C-alpha cells in the first residue's frame, strides 16, 4: 500500500476519478451527435440526399435502433477502439482509428510547439509585469496579455503568413513539409523526431521551418492567458508572509522571486493548465485550417464537409480522451509541485 500523501497514492486516486469525467464527456458527445438533431445523417446532408440513401446510411450505422441500444453499442465501440469504417470520399473504407492515428502526430507536434512558445513568452512577460507592478513595463505587459488573447488565431496566422512567408519569404506559406524532398520515414509520425532519429538534419530543418509560423501563431495567442494568470498570482504571492520571512533571513532576491513567489504563483497557473489545453486544441483546429496543416482538426473539418459521420464521431471521441488524459496529467503535475494537494 503506497504511503498516504505519496505521489503514487495520489496518482491512483486521480486515475479513478478521471472515469466519471470521461463518461460524462462521452455522453455529452452522444447527446449532441444523436439526440439533439433527431437524425444525424439527415442533419449532415441538410435534406439534400435522397431518402433511400439516408435510410441506407442510417441502417448501416445502426442509427435505426432504439437509443439505449445505440448508446450501448457506442460505449462498446469507444472501449474497443473500433469506430467503424469511414464513409467519405477520401478515406472511404478505411478504419477510422487508423485514419485518426495517421493525423494525430501532426496535431501533437503543433500542440507541443505552441505550448512551448506560449509558456516561454507568456511566463516571462507575466513575471516582468508582476515584479514591476504599476510601472510602465507592467502596463505594457497587461495590455499585451489582454490584446493578444482576443486576436483571432486565423487572422494572426494569415497576417504572419503574409508578412513572413509571402512578403519576406523567410518561411513556407503552409503545409507540413516541402514537396521537393521526401519526408522522413515514419517512426513516431512526428517529422521533427523522425528526422532526428534517422539522422537527417536537412529534413529536421525543413520540418522546423514549416512548424515555425503555425506554432508562433497559436503560441502567441495562448501566451496571453499565461501572462495574465502569472502576473495576478505573482502579485498575490509577492506579499505573502513566507516571502517577508525569507527576506528577514537574508535570502537573495533572485531566489525569493523564483523559489518563493514564482513557484507558489505557479500552482494556480497549473490548476488552470487544463483549460489552457482546451483552448489549445480548439485553437489548433483553426491553426490547422489556416496553415493547411494535416492534423486531426483539419481532418474533423474535412469530415464534416463530406458528411463522414463515423470519422466525425471518432475524431471527437479521440479529442475527449486527449482532454481527460491531459487533465489527469495536470492534476499529477500539481501533486508533484504542491505537496499539500497529495492528501
Amino acid at each position: 500500500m503506497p504511503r498516504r500523501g505519496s505521489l503514487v497514492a495520489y496518482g491512483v486516486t486521480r486515475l479513478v476519478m478521471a472515469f466519471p469525467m470521461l463518461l460524462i464527456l462521452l455522453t455529452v458527445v452522444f447527446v449532441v451527435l444523436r439526440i439533439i438533431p433527431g437524425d444525424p445523417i439527415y442533419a449532415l446532408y441538410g435534406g439534400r440526399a435522397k431518402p433511400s440513401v439516408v435510410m441506407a446510411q442510417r441502417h448501416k450505422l445502426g442509427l435505426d435502433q432504439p437509443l439505449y441500444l445505440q448508446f450501448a453499442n457506442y460505449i462498446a465501440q469507444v472501449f474497443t477502439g473500433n469506430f467503424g469504417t469511414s464513409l467519405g470520399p477520401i478515406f472511404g473504407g478505411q478504419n477510422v482509428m487508423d485514419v485518426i492515428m495517421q493525423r494525430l502526430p501532426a496535431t501533437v507536434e503543433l500542440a507541443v510547439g505552441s505550448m512551448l512558445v506560449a509558456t516561454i513568452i507568456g511566463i516571462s512577460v507575466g513575471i516582468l509585469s508582476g515584479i514591476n507592478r504599476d510601472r510602465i513595463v507592467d502596463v505594457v505587459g497587461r495590455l499585451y496579455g489582454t490584446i493578444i488573447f482576443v486576436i483571432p488565431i486565423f487572422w494572426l496566422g494569415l497576417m504572419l503568413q503574409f508578412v513572413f512567408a509571402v512578403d519576406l519569404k523567410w518561411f513556407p506559406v503552409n503545409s507540413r513539409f516541402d514537396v521537393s524532398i521526401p519526408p522522413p520515414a515514419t517512426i513516431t509520425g512526428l517529422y521533427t523526431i523522425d528526422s532526428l532519429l534517422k539522422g537527417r538534419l536537412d529534413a529536421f530543418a525543413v520540418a522546423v521551418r514549416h512548424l515555425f509560423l503555425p506554432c508562433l501563431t497559436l503560441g502567441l495567442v495562448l501566451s496571453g492567458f499565461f501572462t495574465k494568470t502569472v502576473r495576478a498570482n505573482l502579485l498575490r504571492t509577492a506579499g505573502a508572509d513566507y516571502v517577508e520571512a525569507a527576506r528577514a533571513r537574508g535570502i537573495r532576491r533572485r531566489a525569493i522571486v523564483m523559489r518563493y513567489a514564482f513557484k507558489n504563483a505557479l500552482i494556480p497557473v497549473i490548476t488552470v493548465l487544463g483549460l489552457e489545453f482546451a483552448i489549445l486544441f480548439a485553437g489548433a483546429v483553426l491553426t490547422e485550417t489556416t496553415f493547411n496543416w494535416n492534423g486531426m482538426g483539419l481532418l474533423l473539418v474535412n469530415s464534416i464537409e463530406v458528411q463522414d459521420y463515423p470519422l466525425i464521431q471518432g475524431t471527437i471521441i479521440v479529442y475527449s480522451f486527449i482532454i481527460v488524459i491531459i487533465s489527469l496529467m495536470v492534476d499529477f503535475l500539481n501533486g508533484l509541485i504542491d505537496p499539500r494537494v497529495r492528501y
Partner: protein
Amino acid sequence: MTESDDSFADVKAQQPVLPRPFLGRLLHPLMENRRTLAGVLSWIGLGIVVAFIVIAVLAPILAPYPVEGPSAIVAPKLQPPSLTHLMGTDESGQDVFSRVLWGAQTSLEVMAIGVVLALAIGFPVGLYSGYSGGAVDRIILLIMDSIYAFPGLLLALLVAVMLGKGVFNIGIAITVIYIPLYYRVTRNQTLSIREETYVEAARGLGARPWTIMWSYIAYNVLVTIPVIFALSAADAILTAAGLSFLGLGIQWPTPDWGLDLSIANTFGDIGNGVWWTSFFPGLMIILLTVGLSFLGEGLNDLVNPLLKKERA
C-alpha cells in the same frame, strides 16, 4: 475565459452588499475612477462597444454599397483599397468596407443570443445548485466541469453541424459553451453568500428557500455578472468568428467577419498578396473583442475592490 484570470479569481472573493440601484453600482466606480488605469480602460472599452453598437444599428445608412443580392457586386474583384473602396473589394467584387460595417450586426446578434441564453440557463441552475448543495450540487458540478474542460470551439462546432447554419443556430451553439461558465460563477457566489448573516437571519425567520434564493441571493450574485458578461461576450465573438471561419457558421451571402476571412483563406488571397480581404474583417473582430475585454477587466478591477471595501 477561465477561472484563473484575475477577474475570475476575484469574483469568488466578492461579498454581498445590501441592495443599491444596480446601474449606480456600476456607474459610480466608473465615474469615481476615471483617472486610474482600470478606469481609463473601462471607459475606452465602453466607448468601443458603444461605437460598434452604433455601427451595427446604422449599417444600412453608413455602408456605401449594398451587401446582399445581385446589386452587391459593385466593382471588379480584388481591388486594393482606394478612395472609392476604402478597404478594397473581395473575391466576388463586393465592397469590403460595406461588408465589414454590416458584419457588426451579425456578430453582435450571434453574441447576444449566445451569451444571454447562457446566462438565462446557467444562472438559475447555478443558484439552485449552490443553494441546495448536497449530491445534486455535486453531480451538476461534475457535469458542468467536464463540459467546461472540453474545447469550447469543438463543442460549438458539433452543435452547429447538428443544428444547421444561420444566426440563431450559431447563437445556440455558442450558448452551450458558456452555460458552464455562468453556472460556476453563480454557484460559487451563492455558496459564499448563503453563509452570510443576513441570509441566515432570513432563514431563521422562516423565509422559504425560493424567496431566499431569489430575493436575497440572486441580486447579490447578479452584481458580479457584468464583468463575466463582457468577458464571455468577447470570447463568444471569437468563437462565432471561428465557426464561420471553418465554414460551419454564418452562410454566404450574410456579411460576417469570420465568414469573410474564411472566403479569403479558401481562395488563398494571402498567398496571392491580397491582404485586405482578411486584414479588415479581422481588425474589426479585434477592436470589438478588445473593447469588451477592457470593459470587463476594467470593471473587475473597479467593482471588486469596491465590494470588498463595502463589506469591511
